[in-house]
């Protein structure tokens, strides 16, 4: 009887410890300090194509900058004490997201023709709320290809769209689109003149698919106008000759495209050897059949 009581007591004690410790844990969880999220955003306009915001979320955790993935950020257009929600987007594994503006004309600027965009994160269990405000003015680049004295030039004009005025003293970059890194053309900085234009000669012999070069004129991360890009498809490149061995018989082709020599010689060796092995096994059979003839 005494033992039984002891067991009950121990059981109750263990249950109490368990309950106490779990409630203690909860308390700790509630008091845990949330990490701060840092939001970064850039405005990018590609002429005649799209306008988007590159958004990136990071956090300093344990003295290390960490990408904050899978959080929802909301984008607002602010004007005249008003705020219109443009949409929400979730960050990817790298903490990045690209918010494409469906209709740029629906965005409203303030009285100074400046667009105000608020990017906001509401916060969650792990991270506290954060926001980032960016401003920009609408600029356009008009780029075209011209040929003068057998030399090809890319000319571009930079305009302030709100005022319909030219922008001088701005640095534009001219580059050819490439898979990993763009191929820069001309000087490092091409400064727009008083007419807001630049003119950059394009050297001959730049390879392009079917002879087409996708030449970009870029106003990169400008304080007032953000990033603006115009793309000109110029049929002035050297056509890339496709040297693919995709449909040929090579050592790296699939098995239905095995080189002929590799089909012939190894198979000759294989069948030759296994032919002899079969012959040897047949010899074993022959030995077993010749038991009665003894010398």
């Amino acid at each position, binding site marked *: 009887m005494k033992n039984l009581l002891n067991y009950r007591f121990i059981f109750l004690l263990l249950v109490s410890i368990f309950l106490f410790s779990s409630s203690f844990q909860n308390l700790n969880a509630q008091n845990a300090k949330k990490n701060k999220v840092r939001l970064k955003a850039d405005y990018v306009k590609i002429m005649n194509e799209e306008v988007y915001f590159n958004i990136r979320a990071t956090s300093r955790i344990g003295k290390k900058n960490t990408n904050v993935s899978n959080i929802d950020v909301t984008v607002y257009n602010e004007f005249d004490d008003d705020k219109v929600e443009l949409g929400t987007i979730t960050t990817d594994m790298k903490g990045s997201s690209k918010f494409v503006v469906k209709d740029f004309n629906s965005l409203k600027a303030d009285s100074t023709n400046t667009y105000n965009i608020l990017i906001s994160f509401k916060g969650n269990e792990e991270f506290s709320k954060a926001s980032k405000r960016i401003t920009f003015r609408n600029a356009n680049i008009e780029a075209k290809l011209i040929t003068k004295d057998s030399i090809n030039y890319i000319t571009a004009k930079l305009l302030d769209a709100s005022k319909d005025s030219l922008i001088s003293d701005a640095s534009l970059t001219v580059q050819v689109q490439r898979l990993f890194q763009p191929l820069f053309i001309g000087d490092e900085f091409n400064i727009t003149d008083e007419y807001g234009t630049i003119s950059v000669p394009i050297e001959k012999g730049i390879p392009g698919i079917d002879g087409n070069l996708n030449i970009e004129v870029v106003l990169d991360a400008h304080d007032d106008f953000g990033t603006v890009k115009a793309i000109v498809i110029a049929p002035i490149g050297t056509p890339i000759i496709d040297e693919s061995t995709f449909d040929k018989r090579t050592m790296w082709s699939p098995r239905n495209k095995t080189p002929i020599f590799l089909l012939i010689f190894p198979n000759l060796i294989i069948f030759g050897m296994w032919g002899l092995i079969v012959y040897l*096994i047949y010899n074993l059979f022959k*030995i077993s059949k*010749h*038991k009665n*003839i003894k010398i």
Partner: protein
Amino acid sequence: MNNYNIILNDLVPKKFGKRGTIWTIFLIVIIVVGLIAYIDQVNKGQVVTNMRDYALWGIYISNFVFFVATSFVGSVTVAILRLTNNTWRTPLVRIAEIISLAAIVMAGLTIMIDMARPDRLLNLFIYARLQSPITWDVIIVPTSIALSFLLLYFPLLPDLAILKKHFKKTKPKYSKWYGKLSLNWTGSKKQKSIQEKSIKIIALMIIPVGILLQTIDAWLFSTTYRIGWDSTNMGAYFISGAFVAGVGALVTVVYIIRRVRKLENYITDYHFDKIGKLLVLACLIYFYFNINEYLIPIFTAPVQEDIHLNALISGEYAPIFWFSQIVGLILPIIILLFKKGRKPFPMFIVGLMVVVGSWWKRYVIVTPTLLHPFLPIEGVPESWHHYFPSMHEWLITAATLAMASLIITIMVRYLPVVPIQRTADELDLLKTDKITES
């Protein structure tokens, strides 16, 4: 008792004593433990090993290469010595054939152990690409198994018939089995002619097959364009390495069998001296290839290969590298160059050194290269930068080595390790020669 009966009595398989039984049980225990580890590996996947994205070939492949190399002993001792009419080979060939068969069978099994999904084994044949060295390996290993088996079996036929007769009264059950396996061998002229012709064909075939096997094994590495493997030397380097591993294994096993089965009258100091000379020749050739393989790149290596060489010579792998070079190659050469070093016991020690050195040499060939890729290893856990086998890998590898030893043990138990008929024939021949001389 006449001479033939003495030979017969000495050479027929005998029941194991206490030591033999303990040895067999020991091997079975290791195999069972390894089997349990393997079942666990199949269930949980290769996450139980320490192989990861970079070190994707670990000791399983090192072990596979070791078995393939050891199997070369069949080609060397049996075929080459036979074709060059070296009569001293007689008491050694059967043991060499047994080692060869055991090693190549285990090589085939080891490669399956390395497969994360052994149930997909058939896909290797169904979806084979002749461009792939893996396919060449898949073809050559079964070919070698078949040929090694025939190389062992054909010369065994007369001995099996002798054993059938010998055990007829004392052990009729054994006699029945030996009778079946002897394929009604009576020693008729026709049977002898077929047998001799077949052995000749096998002896001729086993050399190119052995060379192909070793070369394909080398090409598995050298066709991958990796640092440390990208060498035109690799095929010849592997053949010479296999020569060393195979003869080393032969010396070790011959010594043990000679001692256990008390065959001192058949496997004499003379045989050890001869095989010692063969081994030192093999070691010298392999040493030459090692100089080519490691010394020249020291002068010419680009940055990445230099890092790899430094890891071998003075870095992480230096202890294993120098162990395999010094203990597995240089010391055996020095010992074997002296006549006293070619006595049975020193030869046994040398054989052990060579076998252990050869095993670690394969580890040095396989693993460090994988951990020195062209692009830096980034964005992976720290442990992936290094490789040392997990307990599962050790247990399974130990089991494969035990299984090879068990195959040899079982064959030693039930087959005459020294050819009875041939030994008797040779002694008769000696007698005839003496009569002729007198």
